[in-house]
């Protein structure tokens, strides 16, 4: 017998048909452009099979931008629905689906891959390495993330979107109240992407520990590398909890177990507990790399070394510890009792201390510095006050008795958007403008960059500042419409105007990217911003092998000392004859493995166990094949290195 939802496999509705048509047109467009310009082989050879950390980083960022667009459209749909009272632009069901996909996509498929992309691009260059520790695994990470994200997005047109919120709380997300395939998409999509993230965490940890250039002790690492190290540790310890929680809920939904059910001894609150044991470290996973980016940029654009380096390191380690002992603050209202709530309230407030240390260190780095107001620095400067506003309201939310009032109100929504946009997204934009020359060999246009910055900054505050107010006035999250006369209407209209402002602002960035690719001056120095760390010591974009000679490090801000130190000869890379460079081979297997996972998990979403089994068998076959592959690496010859270095004017 076929499952009941088989009859309506393809979702109906006017917006879905528009989406169907757009998806088909876009796919046809991509296929025909690739065919017309005969680029299929190029795509396969240069990108789909690559194990180069820089290219994988760029693919992460591209995929994250696509997801940013999707998540942003969801946000605009929500704001359109809430612009006026008693609106019927979306139905309640449709609204539920939209806020679920908005949250899930923005956190797991936008913020995380954007940061993992930037880590991939910059971190190995900053430590003077030629790739990450496990380049092949890095490709597997990317493709499992990519196909996980695609599987999740497929729910929009085939089967129906999940609709139980990004937190997917049971019993609402359980099989009894939510029989359709939407929640299965959530479980399998996240589990697949989570696999890749976990592998990334291990990969980055080993890279930072084992692959640093000679002389780069831990306390000489750039701050972004430190934040990568701490983030990797958080990923390694937090993501297994998510994997377990998702798998247990999958058992409940697919195989009829009663782990989180209301009956037969199930514990629904255990899902909430497990979800936030992962969920709280997760918010530090998406903010710590942004802190790292900020530390790099503020140092560079103030022309000073980072103030209080050891305190910065210590505060990040403290944050890592504390992030594992605060998770109950997401569900104080569960009613676990005064002792539990007090403990977790106090531990949450403690996090403000190391975070405050970081803020003051950034301010003191700028103090008496010669500040250059380039676009990356603008984003970094906006980050600080925005993040402080978000952080202070976070401390308010940590007061357990008061949280009974704030809980699930728009006050909370405003708080976490200040953290995730004002923190993570501003940090990501800063990092993109900063490392753009390293990725593509030219700066983005400053004028368009300033337009992007100011319109986004203003619209962002216009959207989310009123949310604090409507939250205090009693508007709760996830309500799909509201009656007039509550005093919310004008503020909601302002928020909607702000949201569309952010949408328009992003087109400035898009125009900037296109313009810069066509017209911007190419950076031939490799050191576009007068940088301090090693990534600026090689060409832009860096060659496949990153450094012809592995640099030797004698100090923090290694590249700065090579350029400006009194006895700079001591710091500079000694000219030696080139030696062949050992590099990993490209492989198509990670892509195929991701695709096999996709087929398998698509089968499991609809409980077609045959499809699921065949897909998994393919995954295992590919793993087996890898175990017997001995031809995994090659040497770049001295002639080729000489040629590459000569072309970029460095021989």
């Amino acid at each position, binding site marked *: 017998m076929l499952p009941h939802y088989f009859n309506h496999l393809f979702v109906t509705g006017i917006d879905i048909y528009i989406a169907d048509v757009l998806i088909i047109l876009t796919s046809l467009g991509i296929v025909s452009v690739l065919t017309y310009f005969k680029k299929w082989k190029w795509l396969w050879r240069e990108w789909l099979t690559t194990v180069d950390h820089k290219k994988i980083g760029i693919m992460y960022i591209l995929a994250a931008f696509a997801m940013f667009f999707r998540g942003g459209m969801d946000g605009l749909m929500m704001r359109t629905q809430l612009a006026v009272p008693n609106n019927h632009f979306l139905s309640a069901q449709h609204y539920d689906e939209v806020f679920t996909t908005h949250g899930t996509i923005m956190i797991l498929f936008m913020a995380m891959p954007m940061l993992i992309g930037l880590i991939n691009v910059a971190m190995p260059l900053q430590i003077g390495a030629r790739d990450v*520790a496990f380049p092949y695994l890095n490709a597997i990470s990317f493709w499992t993330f990519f196909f996980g994200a695609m599987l999740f997005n497929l729910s929009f047109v085939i089967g129906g979107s999940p609709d139980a919120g990004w937190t997917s709380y049971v019993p609402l997300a359980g099989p009894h109240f939510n029989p359709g395939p939407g929640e299965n998409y959530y479980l399998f999509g996240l589990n697949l992407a989570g696999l890749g993230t976990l592998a990334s965490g291990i990969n980055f940890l080993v890279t930072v520990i084992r692959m640093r250039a000679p002389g780069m002790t831990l306390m000489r690492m750039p701050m972004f590398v430190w934040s990568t190290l701490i983030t990797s540790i958080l990923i390694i*310890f937090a993501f297994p909890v998510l994997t377990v929680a998702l798998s247990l809920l999958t058992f409940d939904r697919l195989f009829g177990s009663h782990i989180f059910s209301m009956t037969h001894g199930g514990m629904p609150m255990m899902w909430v507990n497990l979800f936030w044991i992962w969920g709280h470290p997760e918010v530090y996973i998406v903010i710590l790399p942004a802190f790292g980016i900020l530390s790099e940029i503020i140092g560079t654009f103030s022309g000073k070394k980072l103030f209080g380096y050891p305190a910065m390191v210590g505060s990040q380690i403290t944050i890592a510890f504390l992030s594992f002992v605060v998770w*109950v603050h997401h569900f104080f209202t569960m009613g676990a*009792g005064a002792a539990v709530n007090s403990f977790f309230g106090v531990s949450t407030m403690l996090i403000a201390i190391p975070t405050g240390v970081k803020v003051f260190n950034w301010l003191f780095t700028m103090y008496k510095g010669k500040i250059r107001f380039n676009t990356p620095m603008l984003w970094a400067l906006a980050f600080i006050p925005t993040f402080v506003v978000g952080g202070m309201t976070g401390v308010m939310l940590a007061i357990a008795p008061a949280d009974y009032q704030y809980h699930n109100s728009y006050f909370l929504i405003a708080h976490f958007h200040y953290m995730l946009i004002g923190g993570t997204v501003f940090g990501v934009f800063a990092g993109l403008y900063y490392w753009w020359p390293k990725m593509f060999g030219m700066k983005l246009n400053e004028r368009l960059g300033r337009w992007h910055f100011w319109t986004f900054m203003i619209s962002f505050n216009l959207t989310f500042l009123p949310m604090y107010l409507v939250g205090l006035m009693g508007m709760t999250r996830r309500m799909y419409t509201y009656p007039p006369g509550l005093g919310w209407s004008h503020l909601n209209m302002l928020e909607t105007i702000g949201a569309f402002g952010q949408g328009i602002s992003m087109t400035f960035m898009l125009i900037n990217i296109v313009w810069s690719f066509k017209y911007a001056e190419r950076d031939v120095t490799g050191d576009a911003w007068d940088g301090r760390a090693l990534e600026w010591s090689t060409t832009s974009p860096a060659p496949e092998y990153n450094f012809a000679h*592995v640099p030797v490090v004698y100090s923090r801000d290694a590249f700065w000392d090579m350029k400006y130190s009194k006895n700079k000869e001591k710091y500079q890379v000694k000219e030696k004859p080139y030696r062949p460079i050992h590099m990993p081979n490209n492989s198509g297997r990670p892509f195929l493995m991701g695709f096999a996972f996709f087929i398998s998990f698509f089968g499991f979403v609809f409980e077609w166990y045959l499809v699921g089994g065949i897909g998994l068998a393919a995954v295992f076959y590919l793993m087996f094949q890898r175990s017997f592959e001995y031809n995994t690496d090659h040497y770049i010859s001295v002639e080729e290195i000489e040629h590459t270095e000569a072309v970029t004017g460095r021989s």
Partner: protein
Amino acid sequence: MTTHSDVHATQDTAIAPGQPINHEKFPWKHIVGYVLSLVLTFAALGLVLSSALPLTAVIVSIVILAVLQLLVQLFLFMHLTERHGSATHILTLSFAFFVAITVVAGSAWIMTFRSSVA
């Protein structure tokens, strides 16, 4: 850990061209570890499914099996006894125990609210 060819992708001092990559002999340690971890997993599952033992006994036995599983993983797969370079793994391992204890004890403490509600 340097038996996998992925690892030494980069330092030019790592391996000279033409030098054969050292492959270990047959990985008995991994095979034994793999079989043991499967046996321990299915033993736990069997105990729960068969419901031959009283509840407390089942819980105690699966906790014991879990600790054995942990030891198998640490000693047979995670090279706990091998060392070169700094003692990073000790720090990481301590953090792992910190997280494990926090998660288990914390969850147990938080979920005690059920008895007070009931």
